[in-house]
């Protein structure tokens, strides 16, 4: 595209301008072969509105291409002769936030990969007198507990271990599982994923403490199986005084942004590296930005209540040790029932302006 008005707007944005395309009237000589897509330009304009992006970030945004499936790079409406082919040109201000998040996620994914893994925590030598245990259940609860206990010289394993099934209310566990799957491998959006879950009927095993317990029963003595709903019970069960540190919670938009970033990181690095980068590098970055937690929509109360009742009854009938109140499985917490696209974009831009990798400079490699 050689439209002088479009190139003038690119230059305006490059210099930190915030004028919307529809109000732009300047003209300059074309400065390249291809005007960046409307998504990239609008994202840069909003970054300029929100802060003072570094010149390197400006150039990366202009050179980016929206990854994955979705709208292709769109042309600016009213810029030169409109081609009768391809998607219709747009006024960038009218683009949905989700399209801008696509571009932002691609840049943040590059930041995550460039930052590498943080230095691993100091790990103490395993204590010979440690209690034998294994952890199961909600992955967002299990991972930080295991990491913390390993660092304190109490890794899981050992002869005839106690099997500790970590759980909380079903709404939270669904949020946790969706997040971890989005970080590790990729999942559809929250609402779509929940709908599929409801259609499928059963809960995934990891967040169904009764099914986890039953799976262990054939291989371990029943009195070795503990369902831990109350985190305060955990220190006694693993033989420590101080409770293991839980993972810092994430806001609804942070979970959605993590899912989007994970999809790109998955193409940039091998699967095991993706998992490590997402959990150890991106998670703390996202946790720095507070916001409302994500919860299951009220419309699914009945479905969740049925499962909570079934699990509580099954645990009681089988006589498993339950630490905490089984009624807590049906607990409802305040929060938002879906990540808001505008909040997700705001968070993405805040992280871009913060410089991604500069936020946590400790590097492993």
């Amino acid at each position, binding site marked *: 595209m050689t439209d002088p008005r479009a190139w003038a707007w690119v230059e305006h944005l490059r210099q930190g301008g915030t004028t919307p395309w529809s109000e732009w009237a300047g003209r300059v000589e074309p400065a390249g*072969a291809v005007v960046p897509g409307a998504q990239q330009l609008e994202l840069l304009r909003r970054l300029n509105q929100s802060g003072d992006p570094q010149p390197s970030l400006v150039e990366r945004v202009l050179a980016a291409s929206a990854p994955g499936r979705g709208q292709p790079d769109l042309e600016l409406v009213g810029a030169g002769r409109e*081609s009768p082919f391809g*998607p219709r040109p747009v006024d960038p201000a009218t683009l949905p936030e989700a399209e801008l998040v696509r571009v932002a996620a*691609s840049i943040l994914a590059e930041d995550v990969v460039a930052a590498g893994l943080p230095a691993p925590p100091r790990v103490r030598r395993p204590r010979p007198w440690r209690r034998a245990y294994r952890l199961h259940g909600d992955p967002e609860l299990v991972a930080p507990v295991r990491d913390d206990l390993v660092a304190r010289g109490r890794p899981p394993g050992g002869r005839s271990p106690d099997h500790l099934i970590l759980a909380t209310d079903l709404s939270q566990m669904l949020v946790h599982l969706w997040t971890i799957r989005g970080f590790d491998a990729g999942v559809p959006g929250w609402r779509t994923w929940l709908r599929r879950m409801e259609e*499928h009927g059963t809960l995934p095993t990891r967040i169904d403490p009764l099914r986890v317990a039953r799976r262990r029963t054939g291989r371990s003595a029943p009195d070795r199986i503990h369902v831990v709903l109350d985190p305060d019970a955990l220190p006694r069960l693993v033989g420590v005084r101080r409770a293991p540190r839980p993972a810092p919670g994430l806001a609804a938009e942070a979970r959605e942004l993590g899912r989007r970033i994970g999809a790109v990181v998955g193409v940039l690095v091998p699967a095991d590296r993706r998992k490590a980068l997402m959990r150890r590098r991106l998670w703390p970055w996202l946790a720095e930005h507070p916001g409302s937690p994500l919860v299951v929509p009220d419309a699914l109360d009945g479905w969740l209540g049925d499962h909570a009742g079934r699990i509580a009854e099954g645990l009681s009938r089988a006589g498993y040790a339950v630490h905490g109140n089984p009624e807590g499985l049906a607990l409802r917490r305040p929060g938002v029932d879906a990540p808001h696209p505008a909040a997700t974009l705001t968070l993405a831009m805040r992280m871009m302006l913060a410089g991604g990798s500069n936020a946590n400079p400790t590097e492993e490699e």
Partner: protein
Amino acid sequence: MTKRVLLHVGTPKTGTSYLQDVLFRNQQALEDAGILYPADRFDAHFLAALDLMVLPWGGLEAEAHGAWDRMADEVRQWHGTTIISHEILATASRVQAARAMSSLGHPDTEVHLVLSVRDLVRQIPAEWQENIKHRRGFSFQEFLATIQDPHREGPVATWFWGVQEIPDILNRWAADLPPERVHLVTVPSPGGPPNLLWERFCEALGLTGLELDRGGERTNPSLGAPETALVRRINLKANRVVPPGRYRPLVRELLAHQTLSRRTGSPRLTLPPDVHPWAQELAGAWIDEIKSRGYHVIGDLGDLVGPPAAQPYTDPDHPAEAEVADAAVDAIRALLVENGRLLGVEEHLNAQLAETRQELERAHFRPTYRARKKIVRGLESSRFGRGILKLYRFGRGNSSRSA
């Protein structure tokens, strides 16, 4: 020898799988003729395309990281002609296309763009069928409405036009190439000589005169209207209970490709008569545009108009139930045969397992071992017993404790 890159970027359903299979199996013969087809596995160029476009693809993207740059490195080091071919490249953005061209040495290296194209009259039903074979459940009517919507919103319309709108693909890929370096290969109309498309590919890719093994085709077989309707119904019923990893071998491969595509006597999928004029009018506009740009056309642009409307039209959304039932019986038969085979495998594995267990039992048959095992099991079933065991193990030392 002139250094050239022949970059074939699509479109889907134009014989690309067959072409890529022949190229992959004849790498040595091609290399002897000075032509590089850089692929260490048959889907190497697909992975490179995923990498270039940062495109998740059901987990396959995990194998794709760095694939484009590795391939481009090989291309830059080769002294002669290189062929790169994958149809999903058609959907690359302008920025991605520019990055790809630059990584292949453009503008210093002579890059030629090859685009194989087929009429929309056949492409539209073929794309719907491809969607159905990828677990989708929308009707043909819904698909047609989606792609005819000028807003082109949503993943289905975006993808369809991204890989099918010929002038737009060329805008993205060939904006700064001279027209003589852009080669359009048209897929012949139905009923043409069977070798004609291959001959056109040979001309575009400089393969004419080479002795190539063309056996063992990797084709993408098509389904008839009742068979596609059946797979759609299976999707609607079974998607909830069949995870994607199981769907691929059982539904797409076993049912669609190996069973239902062999039912060639059923009515074929075609465009509805009321949509036919729209598709041909669009093709007419594309032909005019392509002619005006002066590209090298191998074949006949008239091929893009497509065949006349089928008479009578078979609506896959309201198929003849007897034909669907026939297809379903074939599908059940195939599933029974496959289940029989799997039961055989299971029996064989069970026999092997039993044999292994017997060996293990024999090894542990000593009476003292059995007695000790019984005692340990007994002790482990109670808290008191576990305490005794712990004391015993502590007394014996670290070597008796597990890690």
